[in-house]
């Protein structure tokens, strides 16, 4: 039984940078090499499932960011909290260790992030397309370089 403040102190004790972002929200940023290790620590503290896996494309800095949102079902004091575990990788090396071995619930999110952004998760057994058709042309729709054709009805003038 730990509340969020205790959790933060405990994580800080293992020399990981943690920030309280707002009430009930905690943010952790790690190097991708340490991702799996930190996730195991978090799991042992009671955060038992992944809510979402988000991939973001920072085209100007040519890097991707991946955010895992973790929360807890079993620890009553942590159910109100969401912990964001962030890591980033460069365009040249779009690979991140998968958290599937730690959190099975990351399966869907990682698979979708792979198909939409082209980030490869090492260790996930199902790195295949999920939502898009098999003969989908072009690459990775959620990248900023993928532009959609806009109709001019509700859309403001191009800047």
């Amino acid at each position, binding site marked *: 039984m730990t509340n969020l403040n205790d959790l933060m102190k405990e994580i800080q004790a293992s020399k990981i940078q943690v920030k309280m972002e707002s009430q009930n929200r905690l943010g952790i940023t790690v190097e991708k090499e340490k991702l799996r290790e930190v996730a195991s620590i978090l799991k042992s503290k009671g955060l038992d499932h992944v809510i979402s896996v988000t991939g973001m494309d920072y085209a100007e800095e040519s890097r991707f960011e991946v955010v895992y949102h973790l929360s807890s*079902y079993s620890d009553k004091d942590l159910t109100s909290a969401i912990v964001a575990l962030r890591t980033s990788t460069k365009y040249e090396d779009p690979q991140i260790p998968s958290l599937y071995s730690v959190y*099975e619930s990351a399966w869907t999110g990682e698979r979708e992030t792979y198909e939409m952004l082209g980030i490869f998760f090492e260790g996930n057994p199902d790195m295949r397309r999920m939502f898009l058709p098999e003969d989908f042309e072009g690459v990775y729709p959620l990248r900023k370089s993928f532009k959609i054709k806009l109709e001019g009805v509700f859309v403001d003038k191009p800047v």
Partner: protein
Amino acid sequence: MEIDIVPVEGELNVGPQHPGSGHMRIYVKLNGDIIEDAELDVGYVHRAVEKLSENRNYMHLIPLVERPAILDSIHMNLGYVMAVEKIIATDVPERAQYLRSFAAEVNRIASHLYGLGILGIFLGHSTAFMWGFGDREVWVTILEALTGARVTNSYIIPGGVRRDISPAIMEMTKKAIDYTRRKLEDWRKIFFYNPTIRARLENVGVMTKEKAIEWGAVGPNLRASGVPFDVRKDEPYAAYSSLDFEIPVYKEGDGLARGLVRLDEMEQSMRILEQIMKDLPEGNILSDRFFKQIPPIRLKKYWEGQHRIVLPGYYASFRPPKGEASSRVEAARGELFYYLVSDGSPKPFRLRMITPSYRMIYAFKQLLKGSRFADLVSVYGSFDYFPPEADR
């Protein structure tokens, strides 16, 4: 007489046009009639809401994000607006909070009735299907009277709600509650106590508590496995912190428990509705910050005349500060999560939308392994899985 059963292995496609699959193809590997492996091929109704959100203003996104779950659009709407409110730091008046809860609970009942109806038709019980859709109509009519649209209501806006409730709607709701209470008894008697239905649902697709947590199951399916998690209690939003209700939890984790949880939840929702109608506070339904921007002539015509909000100019293309917000609500099918990143432009940098059915994909796939082929529809129906919601 003794019959030799020859084990046969093979693969089978269920769907995407199978009446029992919806917009989804389920690819099963069979050994005899035991499912050895199942592959859910989703994506037939994928509409790329996340990508489109990078090209729309925050307000233009409201009708878009509520499309994925047509029968649960109030919750979709609410979750998104809560994320936007966090990012622009807006307060919401008390009355609007209550009205949000009101609309959400009406929508929850409608969605559960739909789910039970679908469960009925999957098991060949067409009466339940007719009942589910007929009883749902009562609640959809209330939503129509309250918001002006049967589905995809776009009722909730940043800072409040769009329309006020009227005594006529309250009267309708009271009648609907009376009717549905009687109907729920019939549901129990004719559907859940029916030996055929029991045989198809009991001890079928059992998801243990540990597995439910590990697979990240959500909503009624999670609570049927014995995990008492509900966002309304654990991280209260709208008016739920001041309302008195219980979370039904079953420990069996089978198809029957999943159906009964939803039945009990409807009862609790009606309890919430009664409390809201009793304690609804007086006051404004839109935050003062936006209310002051509405021109007096329009205010007189719409707010004083029809109890409606006309959208103030601020909404046209506001630029929230840089930052990010995450919000979650308990939608009818479970926890709905939004993650919004703003880079200071009038359009979101990234909108991540995690719907309950999306999170059930993995649990569903795992749960099918080892069950009988004939039970596929029982598991599917009892999961209340809604393909468009998973695809977004």
